[in-house]
């Protein structure tokens, strides 16, 4: 009886945005009287950070401090239409809509400031700290707050913008499957190191080393949270989870977290991540949205590492100790992969 070390690899790509399009998202942006900006959406924050990433996108596009932007979502009386938070479409679709709405609001803002400064709007730029200045002449400036005040109370102008982003719907061909599935893909590659106990069939994942390509990390902390959480989910999918242990028979289905198995906090695997950023041309600031794809490479990498360790191909998920012990019995014991 022994502990066998194994190492497995997998790499993937992931389509960003609802397949075949037809999924619009809208955004509305407007300024309060003193130059703070409200972003009205119908997007949902599931914990992935939808409110935060759209807030940062609005801040960048408007050219104002992020503290001066607030995202309000989702009230169907005030938020414009959005299909929802799924299919890796939040950052891509809603983010693009927020860019458009913010761009239009910025245009109004610069025109209002131009009138106050008596210059051409195209000569103006923002410093991202709440000021609008003449390009090349930072001393000729006006604050965003004063601009908003003047726009509303002197000029009778709104600092507001509308945005919509839509990939028009298309279809797949019946005969060849030809289609335009999505406009960009995220990528990942991952190495799992684990140990298999050939007495108990227990698998312990020891370490993950990974590289995720996400277009652009719009917020590096949100990316990191997704990747660490996603890897945990991948390990859980590979080794623990199912609603139907005897699939397709429906007997013995778990009914709560006592019987639906998942790894606990003590089983979070040390994970060394490298984030790569190759901006996608139609994504907001190039960002692709890392949330949905990040569990995917973990499942096959775990299966491949188990084969490497004990020579059992586990092609049916989840890879439970029972399946490993049955595999060991069928193989006459552990047969670590020889060369590769």
């Amino acid at each position, binding site marked *: 009886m022994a502990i066998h070390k194994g190492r497995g690899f997998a790499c993937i790509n992931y389509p960003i945005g609802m397949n075949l399009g037809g999924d619009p998202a809208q955004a509305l942006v407007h300024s309060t009287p003193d130059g703070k900006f409200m972003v009205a959406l119908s997007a949902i924050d599931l914990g992935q950070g939808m*409110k*935060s990433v759209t807030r940062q996108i609005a801040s960048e596009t408007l050219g104002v401090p992020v503290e001066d932007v607030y995202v309000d979502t989702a009230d169907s009386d005030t938020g414009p239409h959005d299909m929802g938070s799924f299919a890796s479409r939040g950052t891509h679709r809603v983010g693009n809509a927020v860019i458009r709405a913010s*761009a239009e609001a910025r245009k109004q803002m610069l025109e209002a400031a131009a009138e106050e400064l008596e210059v051409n709007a195209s000569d103006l730029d923002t410093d991202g700290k709440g000021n609008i200045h003449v390009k090349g002449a930072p001393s000729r400036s006006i604050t965003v707050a004063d601009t908003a005040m003047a726009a509303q109370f002197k000029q009778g102008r709104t600092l507001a913008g509308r945005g919509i982003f839509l990939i028009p719907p298309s279809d797949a061909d019946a005969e*060849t499957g030809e289609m335009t599935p999505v406009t960009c893909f995220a990528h990942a590659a991952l190495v799992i190191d684990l140990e298999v106990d050939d007495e108990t069939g227990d698998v312990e994942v020891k370490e993950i080393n990974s*590289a995720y390509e996400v277009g*652009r990390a719009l917020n*590096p902390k949100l990316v990191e949270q997704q990747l*660490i959480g996603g890897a945990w989910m991948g390990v859980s999918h590979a080794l623990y989870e*199912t609603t139907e242990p005897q699939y397709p028979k429906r007997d013995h289905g778990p009914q709560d977290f006592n019987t639906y198995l998942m790894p606990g906090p003590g089983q979070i695997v040390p994970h060394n991540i490298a984030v790569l950023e190759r901006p996608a041309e139609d994504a907001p600031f190039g960002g692709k949205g890392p949330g949905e794809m990040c569990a995917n490479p973990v499942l096959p990498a775990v299966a491949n590492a188990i084969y490497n360790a004990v020579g059992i191909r586990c092609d049916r998920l989840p890879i439970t100790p029972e399946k490993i012990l049955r595999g060991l019995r069928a193989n006459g014991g552990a047969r670590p992969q020889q060369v590769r």
Partner: protein
Amino acid sequence: MSSTEFRKDLFADERDDTLKEIGKPTIRQDILGHVTGRTKYFDDHLFDGLLHMRAVRSPHHHARIRRIDTEAAARMPGVRRVVTAKDVPVNLNTLLSLINFGRDDEPLCAHDKVRFLGETVAWIIADTEREARDAVAQVRVDYEPLPHVLDVEEALKPDAPVVNEVYPNNTFDYHGKYDHQKLRFGDVNAAFARADHVIEAEYQMSPIEQAPIETCGAIAAPEQNGRFVCHTNTQALFFSLGTTAKLLDTPSSRLHFIGGTAGGGFGGKVDSIVEPTAVLGAMLTGRPVKFAWDRYEEMQVGAPRGGERWRIKDGVMRDGTIIAREFTGFFDSGAYMRLSPYAIIKGTGHLPGPYSIPNVASNVYCVVANRTPATAMRGFGITAVDFSIECHMDRVAEAVGMNPIELRILNAYRDGDMKAHRRKAKNTALIECCQVAAGKAGWSISADAMAQSSLRGGGLGERGAIPETATDEEGRIGERRAGRTRDTAPSRQPTGRVPAGHAGQAVTAAPVQNPDMEIEIERIGHRIAAQQGAAPAPRAPQPPAGQPTPPRAAPPAAAPQSSYAPPPSPQATAPTYQQPPAPTPPPAPTPPTPPAASEPYKPEQPFSRGVNRPGTSRFLSGTRRR
């Protein structure tokens, strides 16, 4: 323990890293509310006189409903209303009817028969949840159990019971023609015949629960003017609103949906079942009604990630080059379609994974069986096939005696490669991910593999071309049930040919409706393929932030950088990020001088949201209303 590094050195010439806010680790707008327990979730909205709704659920996989006796239940203490299928104005829907996909196939409440264990057959609305549960136990349903089928491949057999009469062949009908979605690219059979190895295996994904901490739920209440408010944790506000409007046959203007914050979703909160149910309850009682799943319902009645079965067959040359890959896939959709047929198209567009393979074929079936309907979950349509592909890659590596990472790099797709769905790959980065992950893990790969790049070698010759393609018309709707078709894999006897190079137009984003809505090109922070050469003309409405040029116009394998058309640069080989010339906007019209105003309004302090009312409990995070 864990570590994160940002490899800014890679693809640096395609990126401007001097943006002001993007790329900053700004703290979440909502996180303090989350960690201090002040964030309001749907269930934190308090209503006086709130009623509780619970479902009566089927104990059978498949049964005819002969009669429902609700008299005893209606007499139970606290019961306000018993609701059955006849109370649902339009009791048939499919989620994606909102985008004109699929046929209505699912009732909100079963009436003629139940098709899966746990299906709703009635609801009880009572003063308390306890009373609702007790009354549910008193509903008597007279069932006639019917033969059922649970396995996807059993369900395809001619003698399998018909699960859902809307889809009498137990499969989704694709394009009004086939019982599966086809993918055909090149000729896999010819390639298998000349391959050194043919490697086959079958993989099975298990059904998985999305497992959010907060189960699906909604509270609906009458508002004024005949409107209803619905507080919900849906993942898709307008999906839920539109579905509710349709099922309850009410104008969407009568519905006011409020959500936006969910205690986890992972795909399990798209199905829009709790919202129409709660609003129906509020409409029938004129009172606030809460309908939320308990943990058992979340795990066994709420839709899981569906089981998927994939068979993969690869044709491989001795040096590890994969020359053909064939898939046969079965999606376990459960008793109703929901989102599964759509996910199959997504999955089909994903094949054969991130590899450049000249011959690919696939048949994928969306199968109806007497099972809990499946729905979206993180990675929907992709997770299971990626598991299958990457386990299969390991088998291939072993068969040809190769380092598994080198095998991936050898076959990886690159910029300009033609994908099996007949569009060129762009913006690829698989090779770099493989190299970096190998380096981090200390898994050595050959110098040649380390020297490869996604930017080079793609689209050359066969890699960038659409091959002549073998087609067939097997698997027409109904043939399998009639016993005329048995095989589920792509045909071994192709009957048609599609000429090489056959492809339609790529679909790109709709242009902006107003040029003001377009961000200036120099502020987007990355290189785009738009108008190089000629100076950007006045910014007429045109594709946003640089849509790729139509694929027809793509240069045929001339530039290694393929789909990228960098701005003109002195270095011909390695384009670097450059600030494109600033567009010249039309001269701004001089606005009329506004009338001189007296001192405009100016708050002394910045606005802050919310007020602290003295005397209000700090622990009451709800809106109390009647």
